[in-house]
């Protein structure tokens, strides 16, 4: 396959940035999208040009480090992470546009690399159960109905990649935040801090500059892990019941 790549290049956070065009030939359909970029980078290096910087690590769809906004969609045309996207999803001669995540709360670091530490701060605001190591009950003393455990697991599968934010026209982080709020609100372990958690995490999300949710559902459609927007509804319920009844904030 031979492809034309239009890639966002930006030297650093303050550089204005712009698109550069490259030709990738000898692309095999069995390559992953990132392997295609590896080959491009080796070619650029041999020519003495700065390779394209992008985030990636596990390359098996679970660490959430890879990003890339490909042809107007986060993680490209398939509902998967970019590292799991393979070139068989594209056709010979195609032009592919590659951009970083675009969101105020995810500033560009270089080329296609963005800073997603806002997500860490949302978790730090309350995405945990406050238990210290040791001194906890035997695991089977907390029975949890299978259906509830399964729902919690559905929410807990979020990999924190930020595709939901990149997909949203408001750059909202509601899907990410609600996945953690839901997981812990569903489980008995999360009950004690249920109200403060919802309040604090939502407040942090707003403070980071993420936008509001207008229920377009784009986040769910693009989420590589299929996190459902019912989590957003659950978080809204959690949040409203918390603000009208708690004295925490």
């Amino acid at each position, binding site marked *: 396959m031979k492809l034309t790549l239009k890639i966002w290049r930006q030297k650093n956070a303050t550089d204005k940035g712009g698109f550069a065009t490259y030709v990738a030939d000898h692309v095999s359909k069995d390559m992953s999208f*990132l392997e295609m970029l590896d080959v491009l980078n080796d070619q650029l290096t041999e020519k003495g*040009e700065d390779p394209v*910087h992008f985030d990636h690590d596990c390359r098996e769809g679970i*660490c959430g480090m890879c990003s890339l906004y490909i042809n107007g969609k986060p993680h490209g045309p398939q509902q998967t992470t970019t590292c799991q996207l393979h070139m068989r999803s594209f056709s010979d001669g195609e032009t592919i546009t590659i951009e970083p995540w675009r969101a105020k709360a995810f500033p560009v670091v270089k080329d296609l690399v963005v800073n997603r530490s806002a997500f860490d701060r949302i978790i730090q605001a309350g995405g945990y159960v406050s238990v210290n190591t040791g001194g906890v009950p035997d695991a*089977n003393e*907390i029975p949890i109905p*299978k259906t509830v455990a399964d729902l919690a697991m559905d929410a807990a599968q979020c990999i924190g990649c930020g595709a939901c934010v990149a997909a949203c026209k408001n750059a909202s982080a509601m899907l990410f935040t609600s996945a953690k709020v839901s997981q812990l609100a569903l489980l008995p372990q999360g009950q004690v801090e249920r109200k403060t958690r919802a309040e604090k995490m939502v407040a942090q999300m707003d403070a980071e500059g993420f936008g509001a949710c207008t229920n377009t559902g784009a986040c769910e459609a693009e989420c590589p892990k299929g996190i459902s927007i019912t989590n957003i509804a659950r978080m809204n319920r959690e949040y409203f019941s918390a603000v009208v009844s708690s004295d925490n904030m």
Partner: protein
Amino acid sequence: MILDSKIPAGPLAEKWTKHKFSSKLVNPANKRKYDVIVVGTGLAGASAAASLAELGYNVKAFCFQDSPRRAHSIAAQGGINAAKNYQNDGDSIYRLFYDTIKGGDYRAREGNVYRLAEVSVKIIDQCVAQGVPFAREYGGLLANRSFGGAQVSRTFYARGQTGQQLLLGAYSALSRQVANGKVKLFPRTEMMDVVVIDGQAKGIVTRNLITGAVETHAAHAVLLCTGGYGNVFFLSTNAMGSNVTAAWRAHKRGAFFANPCFTQIHPTCIPVSGDHQSKLTLMSESLRNDGRVWVPATQEIAEKLRKGQIKANDIKEEDRDYFLERKYPSFGNLVPRDVASRNAKYVCDEGRGVNETGEAVFLDFRDAIKRDTRKIIEQKYGNLFDMYKQITGEDPYEMPMMIYPAVHYTMGGLWVDYNLMTTVPGLYALGEANFSEHGANRLGASALMQGLADGYFVIPYTVGDYLAQLAPTKVDENHPEFARAKEEVKQGIERLLKINGNKPVDYFHKRLGKIMWDKCGMARTEVGLKEAKADIQALKKEFWTNVKVLGTNEELNQTLEKANRVADFLELGELMVDDALNRNESCGGHFREEYQTPDGEALRDDENFAYVAAWKYLGEGKEEELVKEELVFENVKLTQRSYK
């Protein structure tokens, strides 16, 4: 030099309890006067950082990823072992201990392994309390499954994403301590060196991966939780960034490196598809509970298959060789990883491999789907099947999966004593970064157990014992050793940037990987290893004259990061080969073709090799010195491992 493992005296079951009691304690009001550095935020690092911060120590946590949640523990699929005996099927702490010692082919310490089994039960309690959504039965209690090499069901799991859920649990505990101000996080920061003052670890040198700033950090103790070195093979199931740099630099500062040649080749990975391949993807071992491993009975049929003249499903039952079930009737497809991998290699070497490259065997779910229905199989393995389809383009519900062994885990690592302390006082190694619990072969679902055992339940006691012996005064960062170590790091970076050769970093990494895989991989020979040593030395020379690293230090420079790591892999590779050459026996993942039983199983030599091979760095270009720690077995009898 005699290596003191510091295993406490007394009966096996009482060692840890006694040791905890005899460990010194730091007064609660004094804990805030001690600083601890934790490098790496995987299961071992995140759990250690959180637990130490909860106790009151000041913790600095470092990771090279953009967030601590991305450490490679996240990719562990299958599960975590614990001797809960919730299933009433005969499990116990002693049985988990015994299985781990035996599975490791009697090359691990009894005391350490028993402690691991003992604390395993507390890990599950801790994770459940954090809200980790483990799989459950309809009655609401925890579900278990059996896992490669075990005859009891002691593996706890969260679908096929157990590592993810456990790591997110530890990450949440860590995040809570960040919010409390007890942990300061340094993401996108790589450890470049350890600062050793008067023989004790007192800090580290780091590089900020965004700005390139080289900085120093002082502390009373340094914990390396930096994972394994499987990426020395270039292709492995490790994340792209997984590296040996932190451990290797510590090694060069005096920490002995133990059993470097003990690497685990995982039997169930998606086969290589071409030269562009950047990593290999694991298919969880749990698949072997229901999948049957086979190849065609004859070369002729395999040949037709490879040419695409027939499909797997066209091959009649009598023409299929379920080789693991045939050779190991009592364990069948559930034999330990080393045995499963080696046998896959044998049948492929015989010309019975099933894909274009001839390096793949089938893992077939046809019979399981017939027996249990597709729905049940989907519930158990749905995400793995989807992942397989995504990568290969083939549907494993319809066609058998193709799998082949790949480098997955490294049992070797920094030598540590019972306290997890390396040979440098104040410098600890936890999780995969140390060598201690898995001997020559790790059992499935035991890596997560060890990482969390070390971080949650061992280090809080043992590091306290060390700190209690130090004065509660700040470590002086103005000590000239800090400046010197920093300067050396800067010079190392400059040296790489100045080479300006012709070949990209990966060119060298791929070549190193091929040498290691061919000659220090699943099967090793004296001749091959000697060739490998010469090849690596030549490659190293070429690297330092011809690698091309563009850009500067003062920016995000992923090429420079990689070059820095590959430089260390080149040195480590040579040590692995030395270690494999020294060990004139076969055990676990280390298979020397010269040493095998008549039916092709690993032939141990307990008389001469029941020791830990710890290597001491003696300087640039010098052969390392071998220091032996004899292994003492007081409780288990060494036997030939048999899974027949």
